[in-house]
């Protein structure tokens, strides 16, 4: 343990009464107090407020939807804080109401029970803390950010926002997989609604559709995984599932390395769930929707597509860790996919010019880190990275949003420069700096510690050293592209041109700096991102997050495997120095290429590099043509197939239907003369019909 670390840890332990618990994981589930179940429903109150505002013309033009949402989320955050304080390492179950209860006989596996009930353990609380906390802050930011849409659009935005938080709460707090799935689909749906918020813009509509469809592919995997869990273990409730004797038996087998005795179908579950996680958390090959999702308003990007929803995949794997442990190939696949995604997204991010898109690729890349962390069995590292990432990435997006808002939609880093020197942009610049330092892994920031935890584990876990090297390289790239944005946009000479939302004369544009709400939120988040490093030093071996994970189903501790060394040293210690050096090198290169000697926004030293004009750089800028490849591989064949089916349907099926459709009509024409309107005809028909009927009966029997 390094000297600095030891000092800070000592301070941390004296300042904070650590939430250190001795309780083993998978503790028995106790019933919890009812008020804990209120937290997920408070956002629904926000939805109702928005709907009422949309219906009442007098309220429609007010800011009530926004403040209603902020208030409901703030109260929800307060409830979660209270839950955390009273949790004390226990696993609680709060039953709201009975939802699905089907049974077809007695005994295990003969009943499908999925209640609207909440499974509250420390993993849940960890996630809910930043879901509701960041939700409230970002809603406050959006009060100002969405101002130009006051009216129905405002109601629509905040209704979707609140509904998202409700769905996310269901996802995180559910006590069974079905409710989790409801939340999972709910967040996907809200994401669709909010990406397509500017529904008159074709690109936004296309992006919303893309996000939804790509997510469906993942959701199919998740749905199949859930079904298979029910088939295999006969329950969907976490409490019963994790206490399932067969699962525990398989887990023992898996820890002993004896995967051959675990049935294939049980091992398959994790692989299916993994597909769902890849879709929602934008991992290779299903990451393509996330960069496009930046078409949504920036608060949405910050909350849904950076801080919370996209971490649902990490949550799923963390929650289902026992299931993943019994699968031989699932966690290595997760590790490799995460690593590939991290590298791929980082290379694309380096070549982009749209700052929001750079942040989007950086999100994909950082999610890759989290998956790699899960894959190399450090669920603590992954959860810690989720936690720090939520803060600094939300900050980054909100800063980008402030720039976009102030410069009439300008997002091109070649067209804005020197914000620091302009009046009213100081808080944005400082918050951005803190967040950038976090993202690039600058020593002693939260991002530094959380990333190192994953890197160190990757190096010491047998068989994953290559992953460690790739992730280390990616860390350097991350530092470079992060500070590329900072050095281009926030410092340097003052130079800007407005974006396409400016409709006046080109010379008449004046940027307008953010107001109090945005500044307040950025200040809070900036300070939060700075302080989030502190949680590493309080409460136990792996910090506060470690203690939180320790009490949950995501806990994993295999004896002996983690005691490896790196270059003869403690891996964490050595990694501090190595990754700090790599990160600083990335920042230095960005400084040299994008700051030093730059006199205007558009050009810098990087443009003079031979590499910048090369083919490889262009490919990276064009995102390695992955979208085009998918288009060629999937969309076109499917479209062609659709044409074929359309043809068959149009000419064959419809023809068949038409032939059958004409039969009743012909019969009608044949019967019609009997309806002559003549009384004696009717009477004759009646008598004759009676006779015929009796004859038929006589003949048949």
């Amino acid at each position, binding site marked *: 343990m390094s000297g600095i670390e030891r000092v800070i840890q000592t301070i941390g332990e004296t300042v904070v009464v650590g939430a250190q618990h001795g309780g083993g994981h998978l503790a028995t589930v106790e019933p919890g107090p009812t008020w804990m179940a209120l937290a997920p429903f408070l956002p629904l109150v926000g939805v109702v407020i928005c709907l009422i505002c949309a219906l009442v013309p007098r309220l429609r033009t007010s800011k009530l939807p926004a403040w209603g949402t902020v208030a409901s989320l703030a109260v929800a955050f307060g409830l979660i804080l209270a839950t955390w304080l009273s949790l004390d390492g226990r696993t609680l179950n709060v039953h709201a109401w009975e939802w699905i209860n089907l049974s077809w006989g007695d005994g295990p596996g003969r009943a499908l029970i999925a209640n609207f009930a909440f499974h509250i353990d420390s993993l849940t609380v960890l996630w809910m803390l930043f879901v509701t906390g960041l939700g409230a802050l970002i809603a406050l930011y959006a009060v100002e950010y969405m101002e130009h849409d006051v009216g129905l659009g405002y109601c629509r935005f905040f209704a979707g926002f609140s509904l998202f938080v409700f769905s996310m709460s269901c996802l995180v707090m559910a006590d069974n997989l079905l409710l989790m799935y409801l939340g999972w689909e709910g967040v996907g749906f809200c994401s669709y609604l909010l990406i397509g918020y500017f529904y008159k813009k074709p690109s936004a509509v296309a992006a919303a559709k893309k996000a939804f469809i790509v997510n469906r592919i993942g959701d199919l995997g998740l749905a199949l995984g859930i079904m298979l869990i029910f088939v295999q273990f006969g329950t969907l409730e976490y409490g019963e599932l994790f206490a399932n004797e067969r699962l525990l038996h398989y887990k023992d087998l898996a820890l002993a390395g004896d995967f051959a005795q675990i049935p294939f179908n049980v091992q398959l579950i994790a692989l299916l769930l993994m597909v769902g996680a890849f879709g929602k958390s934008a991992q290779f090959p299903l990451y393509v929707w996330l960069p496009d999702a930046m078409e949504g308003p920036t608060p949405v990007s910050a909350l849904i597509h950076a801080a919370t929803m996209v971490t649902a995949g990490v949550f799923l794997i963390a929650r289902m860790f026992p299931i993943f442990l019994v699968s031989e190939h699932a966690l290595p696949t997760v590790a490799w996919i995460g690593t590939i995604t991290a590298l791929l997204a980082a290379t694309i991010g380096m070549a982009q010019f749209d700052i929001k898109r750079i942040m989007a690729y950086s999100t994909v890349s950082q999610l890759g880190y989290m998956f790699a962390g899960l894959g190399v069995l450090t669920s603590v590292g992954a959860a810690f990275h989720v936690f720090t990432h939520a803060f600094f990435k939300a900050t980054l997006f909100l800063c980008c949003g402030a720039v976009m808002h102030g410069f009439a939609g300008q997002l091109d880093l070649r067209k804005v420069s020197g914000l620091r020197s302009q009046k009213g942009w100081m808080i944005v610049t400082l918050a951005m700096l803190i967040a950038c330092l976090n993202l690039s892994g600058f020593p002693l920031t939260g991002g530094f510690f959380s990333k190192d935890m994953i890197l160190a584990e990757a190096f010491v876990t047998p068989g994953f050293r290559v992953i460690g090297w790739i992730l280390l390289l990616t860390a350097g790239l991350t530092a470079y592209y992060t500070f590329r944005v900072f050095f281009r946009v926030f410092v340097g000479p003052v130079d800007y041109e407005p974006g396409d939302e400016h409709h006046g004369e080109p010379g008449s544009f004046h940027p307008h700096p953010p107001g109090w709400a945005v500044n307040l939120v950025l200040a809070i988040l900036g300070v939060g991102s700075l302080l989030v490093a502190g949680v590493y030093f309080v409460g136990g071996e792996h910090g506060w997050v470690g203690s939180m994970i320790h009490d949950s189903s995501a806990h994993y501790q295999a004896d002996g495997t983690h005691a490896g060394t790196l270059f003869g040293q403690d891996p964490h210690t050595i990694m501090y120095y190595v990754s700090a050096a790599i990160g600083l090198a990335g920042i230095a290169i960005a400084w040299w290429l994008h700051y030093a000697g730059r006199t205007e926004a558009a050009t810098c030293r990087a443009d003079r590099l031979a590499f910048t004009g090369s083919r490889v750089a262009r490919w990276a800028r064009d995102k390695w043509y992955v979208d085009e490849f998918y288009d060629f591989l999937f969309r076109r064949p499917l479209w062609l197939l659709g044409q074929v089916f359309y043809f068959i349907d149009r000419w064959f099926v419809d023809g068949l239907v038409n032939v059958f*459709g004409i039969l*009743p*009509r012909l*019969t*009608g*024409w044949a*019967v*019609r003369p*009997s*309806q002559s*309107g003549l*009384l004696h*005809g*009717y*009477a004759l*028909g*009646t*008598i*004759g*019909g*009676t006779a*015929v*009927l*009796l004859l*038929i*009966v006589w003949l*048949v*029997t």
Partner: protein
Amino acid sequence: MIERVAFLWPEIALFVATCVVMVLGLSRSLALRRLCGPVCGIGLVIAGLLALRTPASPGILPQLMPYAKAMIAGVGVLLLLMLGGTVDREEEEQIAAGQRTFDAARTNRAEFYAFFMFSFTGLMLCASADGLIWLFLALELTSLPTYVMVTISSRSARAQEAGVKYFFLGALGAAIFLYGFTLIYGGTGMTRFTDISAVLAADGMNSITLAGVMLALIGICFKIAAVPMHFYTADVYQGAAAPVSAMLAFVPKTAGFLAIILLTTMVSAAAGETGGGDGGWLPEPVRVLLWVIAAMTMTVGNVLAILQRSVKRLLAYSSIAHSGYMLVGIVAGPGDGTFTHNGLAAVLFYLLCYGVMNVGVFGVVACLERRGKDGWEEVENLDDLRGLCKTRPLLGWSMVICALSLLGMPPLLGFWSKLPLFTSAISAGELALVIVLAVNAAIAAYYYLGLVRAPLLTDPDPDAAPMTDTPVVWRRLATVLSASGVIALAIAADPFMRASETAGRTRDLMKPDRGGADEHAEAAPVVPEDR
């Protein structure tokens, strides 16, 4: 005999209201004349409430009365709302304009409302019937007033013609089933259902009784507008004013089905094993007869409805088809008594649903009119409904909802009513009939979707002659109530399903230990013989 009164309080309430209405309608005072409708309504509501308190009877369907009578009263209120303004509107307008003075000898209002109430009294009496004579009288009390109502409902010559046709064919039908009833009496020597079924259980079916049952069922086909007695339907429904047509689609049909349920339950005693699961609930000839009638009725009704442009004729043929659907439930029989297996319960539930849905579609027609060459004319061409959702959203959407429900679109009421017909017929092993039913439901979708398409998806015809809303607010209320009932009942269907499940249980199913023929014999004489 006097203990039968315990079951008849609803009918007595209706009869009292009828007498009051007969007098009120002839009053010189406009305010008193106007009370006709409300008094009928109060009578129906009281009858409905009294019906809920009806005790279990010792008949062959012990719990039939509470559900059937309450349902009749409920739908009756809807139909009563529709009737407002049918005969009295023009007359009162003329009196108010000073063109004529009130003349008790020429007004139709008193008999119109009184006949309506008589018809409902008869309908409830059908549910109370315990023997052939009672059933015959009840059926005729139901039908006779409707002949007159058709004739006086409109001043057009068509209504006169329709009334005459309806009367003569009705008499023919009545003759046939009365002949059937006499043959049943001749074959068994009994007139009460419990006695007859005891005799049938003991001695089996002789050919005279069988012929009587068959003729009775065919004759009753007139009431439900089934093949081969369906010819009158379109002409009569078209000729009568739309509110009366709506009534004709419910009242005689319900009476007929109550009669058929009673008769089939009665003859089921001769089927050897009753209440069995595998199609053996009726004697084979009766089953074949009903099977053929069901299949032909729905097919004929549907193929003729496809060709119609007149909404009223279309609905008339579709009402024939609905009778065919319900006959499937009769063929399926009571099964094991649970709702999804009990065809009789399915029929009873269907009658309620059909009554509610039907008011909506006829109501839309009744709410629109245009000035013709002699007075106001109903608007009944399919093209007149075009763009109704835009021009008159309330009526348009009522039409859309009710037509979708009649088509059986989930999750509307029509779906939930058709579902038990399918399930009961499948569980009774009547697969062929189920296929016929499914094919017919598909054919019906064609013309019902036409009723949906015209108001919802097309634009109003700019060249069409202008229409006005009929200035009778009660009809709109009935229409909207019906459309909202289609949704509300679909959501809260459970109590009604349970009630019909109870009502559709035969006496054999009520017994804790279901047994064979022996038990019938000893359980039969519950009420002492006092005739």
